């Protein structure tokens, strides 16, 4: 009980104190908002819609099948089907959503809409700095705010996006392979 433990403790804190000025790695503080920690790849926050190409209207993958609207547990998705059709990624004529609203203040990020979508149209975004002071409309996102490009999807979830694109390319290849013999038949007949 001669105080050597106290002296050792004081030496330790002194080393911490002096080292924190000299050695940059000692200070593990991330000074938000100037610095941000990178998020894990599987991070998720709220959903967004994907469109291929440049035009958000023409390239939108969603075909308004309304499966996500029915499966969403807090029922925060509101979809209204369009009256006309437009071609999808394989060229088939499909409906598209005239209105696609997600109430993000209700959404619980359960990802069920992503799991049930058969068209790889809706995925989870990672943005979390979404505070707004507009109490009523600020967190109700429409189709225009939800639609983001496939490149953006690649930038936030590269592995998933790679797998999704591989699947979509496979589908396109299958449809093209079926179309080629059909075309050859048509040409042969004509």
């Amino acid at each position, binding site marked *: *009980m*001669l105080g050597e433990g106290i002296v050792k403790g004081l030496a330790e*804190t002194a080393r*911490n*104190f002096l080292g*924190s000025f000299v050695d940059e790695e*000692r200070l*593990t*503080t991330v*000074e938000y908002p100037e610095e941000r920690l990178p998020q894990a790849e599987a991070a998720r926050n709220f959903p967004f819609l994907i469109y291929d190409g440049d035009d958000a209207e023409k390239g939108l993958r969603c075909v308004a099948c309304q499966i996500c609207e029915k499966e969403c547990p807090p029922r925060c998705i509101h979809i209204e089907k369009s009256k006309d059709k437009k071609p999808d990624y394989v060229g088939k004529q499909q409906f598209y959503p005239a209105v696609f609203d997600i109430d993000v203040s209700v959404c619980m990020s359960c990802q069920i809409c992503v799991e049930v979508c058969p068209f790889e149209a809706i995925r989870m975004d990672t943005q979390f700095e979404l505070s707004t002071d507009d109490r009523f409309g600020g967190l109700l996102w429409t189709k225009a705010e939800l639609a983001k490009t496939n490149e953006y999807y690649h930038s936030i979830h590269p592995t998933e996006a790679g797998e999704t694109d591989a699947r979509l390319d496979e589908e396109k290849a299958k449809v093209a392979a079926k179309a080629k013999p059909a075309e050859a038949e048509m040409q042969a007949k004509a």
Partner: protein
Amino acid sequence: MTQAPVQQLDQIFVMLKHWLVGYVPAAAQPVVSSLLSVVAILALFPALFAFTTVLERKGLGRMQNRYGPNRVGPFGLLQPLADGIKSLTKEDVVPRTADKAVHFMAPLLLVAASFLAYAVLPVGRNMAAVNLDAGVLYFFAVGAVAELAVFMAGWSSHNKYSLLGAMRAIAQMISYEVPLILSSLAVIMAAGSLSTVEIAGRQAGYSGIWPHWYVLTPWGLAGFLLFMIAATAETNRSPFDLPEGESEIIAGYYTEYSGFKFALFFLGEYLGMFAISGLGITLFLGGWSAPFSFLTWIPSWIWFFAKLLALIAVFIWMRGTLPRLRMDQLMNFAWKFMLPMALLVMVSAGVWRFLPHGVLRWIVCFVMIAVPYVLLGRGLLQGKKIGKRTYRFAE
């Protein structure tokens, strides 16, 4: 004035005061002179308090491998401004059954007592506000008033836990006053006077380059360590901050205070810390004198504040290192360890005075303190199992 520029810089505040007082008619001169000293103290030490709060938070942060506050102002140095605005604009909640008069007066009494203590500290050569013949006694008397303020705070809140916290705080303060006063008695014996100005003056000589500070003697070093430990306990600083640490667990004696009164309690506590550090500097570290004879060209008040900042840094360092002591550990430490050591320091100081100069008195005084220290340290450890904790059933 045909003084050398160095001496002029040293006495610049004294000369400023004389110049200002010269403008006042002779009848009012003593009052105005005292008033100027009071204004200087009232302006300087709260500013030091503000600076210390941000220093402490940044220092503790660096010791814990993080930044301290660094948003308000450059390197966070304007943080006290933000803290001041926050505490001034908070709602002042007083419990319905609290004793309003006593509840109001407790922080005021604490701050008043803490400010009164600065009157006898010699901040520089010829720069004590009041040169009392019994300066050290005055200091301890004023410190005793602070205990009463603590009790008033705890009792008036009408809260069991505040009361318990206040009683523990008073018990701690009273227990540690004994080693505090005994270790300063050793200095008073050596200096032959109770006046702080006299004690600081006696330590201003030099033998070769070494100063005549009392801390550079065996009994002085032990006395200084005892004094600083007792000072940490008197001002409720870590690791003796059970009265205020309880706030995190149950409640402390100022739990029912909010807003400005809470800020006043903090002000009072830190002012007490500075005052008692100042007394420690005056008694042991030579007051305003320079550490080496070739450094006397630096003004005396700069040396005092440099030593004060060093002691504040040591307080912050201890806070960042040591865990809190429990109440029974605290009391055992005061009565069973510090009191015998303080008595030995007094005896050693007396022996030092009457032995002739030379190696003999160094050896005798050192052995007189070191051997009981080791024996007491080992002896108090008997019967206590200090080591890795073992569990009867959980292994």
